[in-house]
């Protein structure tokens, strides 16, 4: 079987799960597409999952109320073994990429990370991925009885429901006791669309000129057009915006339909997080700013003057 560990949040199946289903369907790998739903109070998620899968395995347990790398790895590896999975797909989220390597080691399997394309080639599986700060696309190959893959969010179209919903089965798990105690949590709250799911993103850089200007111009424009808000590291380091909004190598990777960069120079580390956006629009007062090299549309001008004219 092809085992996919469903990603879900707030009682709903995440878009990334539907994307993994497409990755599995198009991969040419054989076996029923099996979604594994781990969590507590996940009946509704399992039902959603059944719409796109051949079968759904559900573990609805108090011990799965909160994510833990070792617990998720143990659960996934156990189900992969019992179901003789040939392929295990895990979301390319921060948590997914944190426990996927553990699953690979447990299964003594190769691990292909952050795949943007998957193609079976005989017994082997080939994956494409971005390397060198997203400037290079590499094709990697692994073979063996089972291969673990993490799938980059936003790289596959979300799957449409299957002709017939899959069967749901409860599974029993042997889980380890978490060894990392979570003593506090701070959750990013935003009233706006999540950065990684936004169709349009407005990002502000140091050129915006300050926290107040950021609120006026970047948030102002974003709210006027229903976009998500991003920031460069320079802006985060300056304390104008929270780290949650940082786009780039050490922040989030996004690929919206339109990415609007205001007062952003376009450093390689920033480009690596947004360079795959469909359309890039840049406003910068320096005609030589590197951001213009990757821009579809660029305005050479002052953010403080152009943005008010846009809103």
């Amino acid at each position, binding site marked *: 079987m092809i085992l996919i560990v469903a990603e879900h949040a707030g009682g709903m199946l995440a878009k990334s799960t539907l994307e993994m289903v497409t990755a599995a369907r198009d991969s040419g790998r054989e076996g029923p597409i099996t979604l594994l739903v781990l969590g507590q109070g996940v009946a509704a998620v399992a039902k959603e999952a059944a719409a796109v899968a051949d079968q759904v395995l559900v573990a609805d347990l108090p011990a799965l109320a909160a994510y833990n790398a070792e617990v998720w790895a143990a659960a996934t590896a156990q189900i992969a073994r019992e179901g003789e999975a040939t392929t295990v797909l895990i979301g390319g*989220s921060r948590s997914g990429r944190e426990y996927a390597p553990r699953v690979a080691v447990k299964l003594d399997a190769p691990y292909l990370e952050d795949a943007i394309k998957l193609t079976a080639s005989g017994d082997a599986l080939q994956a494409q991925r971005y390397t060198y700060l997203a400037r290079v696309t590499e*094709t990697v190959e*692994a073979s063996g009885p089972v291969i673990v893959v993490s799938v980059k969010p936003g790289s596959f179209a979300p799957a449409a429901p299957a002709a017939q919903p899959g069967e749901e089965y409860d599974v029993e798990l042997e889980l380890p006791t978490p*060894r990392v105690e979570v003593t506090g949590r701070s959750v990013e709250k935003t009233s706006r669309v999540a950065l990684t799911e936004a169709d349009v993103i407005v990002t502000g850089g140091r050129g915006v000129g300050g926290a107040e200007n950021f609120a006026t111009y970047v948030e102002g424009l974003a709210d006027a057009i229903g976009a998500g808000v991003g920031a460069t590291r320079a802006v985060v380091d300056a304390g104008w915006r929270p780290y949650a909004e940082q786009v780039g190598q050490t922040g989030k990777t996004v690929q919206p339909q339109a990415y609007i960069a205001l007062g952003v120079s376009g450093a390689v580390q920033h480009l690596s997080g947004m360079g795959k956006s469909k359309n890039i629009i840049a406003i910068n007062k320096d005609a030589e700013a590197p951001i213009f090299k990757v821009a579809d549309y660029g305005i050479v001008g002052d953010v403080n003057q152009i943005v008010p004219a846009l809103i």
Partner: protein
Amino acid sequence: MKILTLVRQVPDAEARIKIQGQAVDLDGTTVVIDGMDEYGVEEALRLREAGVSVEEIIALAVGPKRNEDALRTALAMGVDRAIHVETDEKYDAVALSRIVAQVALAEGAELVLVGGQEADWDSQALGAASAERLGWPQLTWTNELKIEGDTLTGRHDVDDGNESFSATLPVVVTTQQGLNEPRYPTLPNIMKAKKKELRKDGAGAYNVTPTVKIVGTEIQTRARRNTMIDGKDPQAAAQQLLELLRSEAKVIA
């Protein structure tokens, strides 16, 4: 406690990347110690400076000759000694974790510091894979770390924000922006570092084979329109942009 901290030498972010045949060719490219690894080295030094009883800090690099420079940088920053498993083989994280685990056990390390992600390969996998091999817990994307006795506390980034944590050594920790500001090696320390031990191991002793093969390498650049608009007249520029977004890019209705 002994600390093992991993380092690599990677292309400078600004360096141009070129391809030769099926692989990225680093000949003539400026290479530097990975920024994520500097955080690890710095953190090990700071733990010691903060009074944690740190018997020894050992830096480890696996890879071709150029990684020696990353180890020299780590030594100059202040680690006690270095191990270079010299090989031209490209190991994937799952394979590499076998070497890391063997070294960690042989050296009796209780804390392994690993970069959050490589600047070049970005697999974000070595920390977790090594932790699994060692049978240890892991803390990834760590931006705050404290050790008291054998208790490790701190804060790290998770999917939707960050968490404070507590765990017991031994642990694998991966680094994240914000953990610290790495120091620059001073001239006297660079001189002192020359006398520190840098052990060379062959990869053969570790009996590891890669599990992932690179079969193609491409530099793909998306063609961009590069339509430039003069912003001297802000009103006109804004109108022109909106029109293009509507009629050409079709991103607004």
